[in-house]
């Protein structure tokens, strides 16, 4: 369960980084607060990745934690990049599901 929570955080990090990139490139509407949104998005992504690594490290110490998070990050980033134009609602649904899923995992004792 800790690993699952870690993977959910990695997916959230990928979504956040993608949103920040879209703000930075001007694809997303709203020029106001764009720099702040970019910084916030990227900052959140880094924090989520760090937290994901820390969680996995609690279960499997050593290089495994970094490798597992890297693998998850590659998959999440690819999925976000490909699903965004094809099935944006699916991506948004995934994003909205992450929070309740994370809370459920926390409630089930995902953090050792």
């Amino acid at each position, binding site marked *: 369960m800790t690993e699952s929570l870690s993977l959910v955080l990695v997916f959230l990090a990928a979504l956040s980084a993608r949103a920040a990139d879209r703000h930075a490139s001007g694809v997303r509407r709203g020029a106001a607060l764009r720099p702040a949104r970019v910084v916030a998005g990227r900052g959140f992504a880094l924090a989520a990745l760090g937290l994901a690594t820390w969680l996995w490290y609690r279960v499997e110490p050593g*290089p495994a934690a970094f490798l597992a998070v890297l693998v998850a990050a590659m*998959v999440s980033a*690819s999925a976000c990049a490909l699903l965004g134009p094809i099935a944006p609602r699916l991506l948004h649904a995934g994003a909205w599901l992450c929070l309740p899923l994370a809370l459920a995992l926390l409630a089930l004792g995902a953090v050792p």
Partner: protein
Amino acid sequence: MSAEQKADAGGRRGFALSRHAFTRFWHVHAWAGVLTSLIVYVMFLLGSLVLFYKPLTIWEEPLVQRRPVELNSLQSLLELAGPLPDEFWLYLPQSDRALPKVGYYLPNSTAWRMWWLDIEHGQVIPQRELAAAYLYDLHYLWHDVTGYWLQYGAGVLVFGMLLAIVTGVLIQLRNATRQLNQFRPDRTTRVLFSDLHKVLGVFGLPFQFVYALTGAMMVLSPLLFELSIGPVFGGDSTRAADTAGALVEEPPPRDYGPPRRGLSLDALWMRARAAEPRLMVESVVFRGYLQEQGTVDIRGEVEGQPFGDGLVRLRARDGHVELVETPDNERAVGTVARWIHGLHTVHYGGLQVRLLLALLGFAGCVTILTGNWIWLERRAARGLRRGDVLLARLTAGVGAGAIVAVCALFLASRLMPMDWLPRLKVEERLLAVTFLGCIGWALAEREPLEAWWRQLLLAASMLAVTPLAARSASQAGLFGAGPKLEPVVGVEIGMYVLASVLLATALWLRKIARRRADEAERKPQAAAAQPHEKHKLEVQSK
């Protein structure tokens, strides 16, 4: 846009690579990619499947669909196994291997054989199912018939892929951040393939690079070892083997001396555990069995160590500890070997990481295929030559054919009775015949897209039926009447997921093929209608 035009465009934006370098890297990337693509594709595809090697070995053999057998004595396994050669491996029961087994190369050959040791019934049962093992061996192009040369060829080819990866990074470096999230499926086919190739290639870059590099080193290490014995070790193969350590799985043959009975395996195991208490024994390797200088390697995971494989080597005759190698007590070469092996065989993370790595593996396959399709789309503008047509059809034949062959293998393994002696040969030949047949089919099709969707549909159909067919061999699966076993059910669920993806892809490609066929039909009709329209206009103007 040609490579030269792109280089010029990059130069205007202040790009570091010169036009000459950019163009050269572009051509090297294209040619290295297309020359290595189809074989590397097969290696990536099979590699993605053998991430689940252990669950597949449980799914395919009903004998091990039970709780691991408990052993009172390790020596009794050797007595049950009967006469054994000088060198053999003994695999002890684990959570994912319910029965012990013994394996060795047949004398004077590279043919590897294994036997299950049913200690409860006093039986030695030859391994009856090798579907997972075939995929594992073919993943690095190993076969008894072709031997090491094809395996070494695979290693060399993978360096071609590494060259394609490195040059790909160099030519896209200037645009990396802009193109990182650029995926435009609504544009032309060429743009779609190009974006897909770049997105999957960039995000999957660490995976593809690490797996290509570690895989190449694993398959080429026996060759490099042999080549180094003369110049580096002055021909002393024993010293070379001792130095290489775990980098080389099989040390060179040597004379282990006259016959001599050693300590029992139980006594040796106790000494190994005393030398390294953290060792969780999984297998034992005998070299020079029942000979004066014979050794026994007690191998397994070391608790609490990253990529924690450990080894205790003992002299069989008296149990003297010759070597203890664990992650925190090893030479530099042992660390290198452990990291190479641990990274490539995923000695971390568990099922979730393997599932993610399988997705990356399939994404790697798509990266390779889209590379070929980009090549073909670029050349289609100037008119395809015979070589391009052959490449298009081969890409379809190998790309879809490899999937069909694997599905046919799994289905056949469930349809044939487990006790039917010829089943191993039939499976092997079926795999080869199906693969070659699909390539022939694709070569015969005028339109590669037709070959793609028909073969993927065939693969999906076979995969969907396989769990049903599996009932005849085992009751532990989805449709079995007995208690369900997690690995067996997991494999069958995985088959249905893959079958769904294959079916969806086949139907999507069929839709595209129909649309293209309709467009192709309308073009001559439109061209034929034009003179008539022109005549109408002329009559009206008069």
